[in-house]
C-alpha cells in the first residue's frame, strides 16, 4: 500500500481539480471577508469566520476526492493497480487515505488563510478562546472525514463519474432530513438522529459560532462516536463490495 500511496498522493495534489479546490477555499472566504470589511462593523471579529463554510465543504470534498477516484475508473487506470497484484483492500485504503489527506489539506488551507488574512483584518474578540477553537476544529473534522469516507464508498462502488454526482446527491438528501422528521414522533429519537447526521453536525458547528452559542460538550462524545461508526461501516462495507466487484 505504501507503493500505491507514493504513486497516488503526489498525483492527487497535482491535479487541476485539487488546485481549483484550493482556489475556491481561498476565494470564497476572501469574498466574504471583503464584504464583511466593507460593512465597517466594529463587532465583527475573525472568530466569526473559521467555520462559516462548514456546510459547503462537503461539496468541495466531493469534487476533489470524488472526481479523483472516479477518473481512475473512467480512464480505466484502476486496472493498472489490480493487474500488477495490489490487493483490492490496499487499493481501497490507498484511495481512502488520499481522499482524507486531500480533505484535511483543503481544510487546513482554508483555516490558515482565515487566520492569516481574517486575523490581520478583523483581529480576535476579547472573549475568544483558542481552546474553544481547537475543540470546534476537532469536532468539525469528524463529519468532514465521515463525508469523505462516504464519498470514497460511493465512488469506489459506483465506478464512474456518477459516483461523484451521487455523493453530491447523498449530501443534499441528508440535508433534507427535516422534511422526513415529521414521520418520527419520539422527540428524543429525533434529537438523537439529528445529532448523528453529519449534515446537522456541520450546521450546528457553523451556527454555534455565528450565533455565539456556548458549545454543547456532549457533542464531544456523540460526534466522534457517530462518525467512527459511519466511517467503519462505510469502509468495511466498501472494501467488501469492491473486492467482489468486476472491473471493466
Amino acid at each position, binding site marked *: 500500500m505504501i*507503493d500505491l500511496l507514493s504513486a497516488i498522493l503526489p498525483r492527487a495534489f497535482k491535479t487541476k481539480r485539487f488546485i481549483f479546490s484550493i482556489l475556491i477555499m481561498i476565494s470564497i472566504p476572501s469574498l466574504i471577508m471583503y464584504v464583511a470589511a466593507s460593512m465597517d462593523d466594529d463587532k465583527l471579529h475573525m472568530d466569526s469566520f473559521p467555520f462559516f463554510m462548514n456546510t459547503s465543504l462537503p461539496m468541495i470534498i466531493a469534487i476533489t476526492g470524488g472526481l479523483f477516484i472516479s477518473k481512475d475508473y473512467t480512464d480505466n487506470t484502476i486496472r493498472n493497480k489490480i493487474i*500488477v497484484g495490489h*490487493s483490492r483492500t490496499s487499493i481501497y485504503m490507498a484511495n481512502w487515505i488520499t481522499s482524507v489527506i486531500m480533505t484535511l489539506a483543503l481544510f487546513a488551507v482554508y483555516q490558515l488563510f482565515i487566520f492569516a488574512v481574517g486575523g490581520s483584518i478583523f483581529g480576535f474578540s476579547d472573549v475568544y478562546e483558542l481552546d474553544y477553537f481547537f475543540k470546534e476544529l476537532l469536532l468539525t473534522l469528524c463529519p468532514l472525514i465521515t463525508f469523505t469516507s462516504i464519498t470514497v464508498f460511493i465512488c469506489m462502488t459506483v465506478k464512474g463519474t456518477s459516483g461523484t454526482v451521487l455523493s453530491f446527491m447523498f449530501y443534499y438528501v441528508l440535508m433534507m432530513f427535516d422534511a422526513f422528521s415529521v414521520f418520527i414522533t419520539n422527540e428524543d429519537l429525533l434529537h438523537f438522529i439529528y445529532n448523528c447526521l453529519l449534515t446537522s453536525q456541520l450546521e450546528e458547528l457553523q451556527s454555534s459560532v455565528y450565533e455565539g452559542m456556548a458549545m454543547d460538550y456532549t457533542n464531544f462524545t456523540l460526534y466522534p462516536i457517530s462518525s467512527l461508526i459511519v466511517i467503519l461501516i462505510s469502509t468495511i462495507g466498501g472494501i467488501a463490495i469492491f473486492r467482489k466487484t468486476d472491473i471493466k
Partner: protein
Amino acid sequence: MEYILQTNKLCKNYGKHHILKELTMNIPKGSIYGFVGRNGAGKTTLIRIVCGLHNPSSGSYSLYGVNNKDSAILAERRKTGAVVETPSIYPDLDARENLRLQYKILGLAQDNMEDILKLVELIDTGKKKAKDFSLGMRQRLGIAFSLIGNPDFLVLDEPINGLDPQGIVEIRELLLKLNHERGITILISSHILDELSKLATHYGFIDNGTLIKEMSAEELHDSCRQSMKITVNDTKILQEVLTEKQLEFKILSETEAVIFSEIEITPLVLALHDKDCYVVTMSESNESLENYFMKLVGGVHHD
C-alpha cells in the same frame, strides 16, 4: 510441459447469461498463445478474470502454478503484464510520466524506463500528452506499461484492433522480439486470424464461452495445409504404396488417410489397384485458418 496459465472449468455468469462455460485451457511457458474467437465469444471475459479484474463464478485457474484462491497469486501477478481492450493510460501525462507513475505503483526503480520506451519506439515523444497520441502509439504505450517489472507473461487483448497496417506490423514485430529475445510467454486474443497466424505458436479456439479446440501451430498447420483426403478399403496397402512413392501422408483410420505431397492421381490409383486396394473417395483440401475456425465453430452464427 510447464504451463504459465491453466484454467479449470472456469465459469462466468452475468445474471442468467453464461459467458464462460467450464472453460479449460493451458498456456505453455514460452509460447505465443493465440486466443481465437468471434466477438462476444468470451475472450475478454477470460482475460479479465486472469488479470484479476473479474471474479470467476465457479471453477479456478492457476498462474505460475498458484491457484487463484491462494493469496500468493497477488505476488505472481507482479510477473504479469496486460493490456485489456483499450490501453489503461493517464491521458493528461506524457509517455515518461505515465511510465514513471506505473513504476511507482509497482514500487520499482525507474532504471530501464528508457529501454522500454526505446523498445516500443516512444522514446522521441517528448512532452506530448498521451491523450494526443495516435491509436498505435497508445497501444505501444499500453504494452510499455505491461513491460514494466520485466514480466514473464504478457496478456494482450485485441492489441491490433483499429491499427493501420504499419501499426499492425510494428506490434507484431515487437511481440515476436519480446518472445524470442526475452522468452516472454504471450497470450494474445484476436479475431484477425491471418495476423495471429504470423505470431502464434499455440492456439485456443473459443466459441460461445467454451474452448472448443486447443492445438499447437504445427497441428494447425497440418490441419490447414494443402492436402488430399483419401478413403480406401485398406490403409495398410495405401501406406505401402505411399511409402514406396516417398510421399508425405498421415493415416487417420483403417480406411482414411491424408496425403500432403503433390500427387499424380492415375498412377497412384493404378498402383493401389495392382495390390487389390480400391479408392472410394478423394477430396482436395486447402483450408485457411479462417475456414478452419469457421468449420470448428460450425459456420456463421448470427447472434
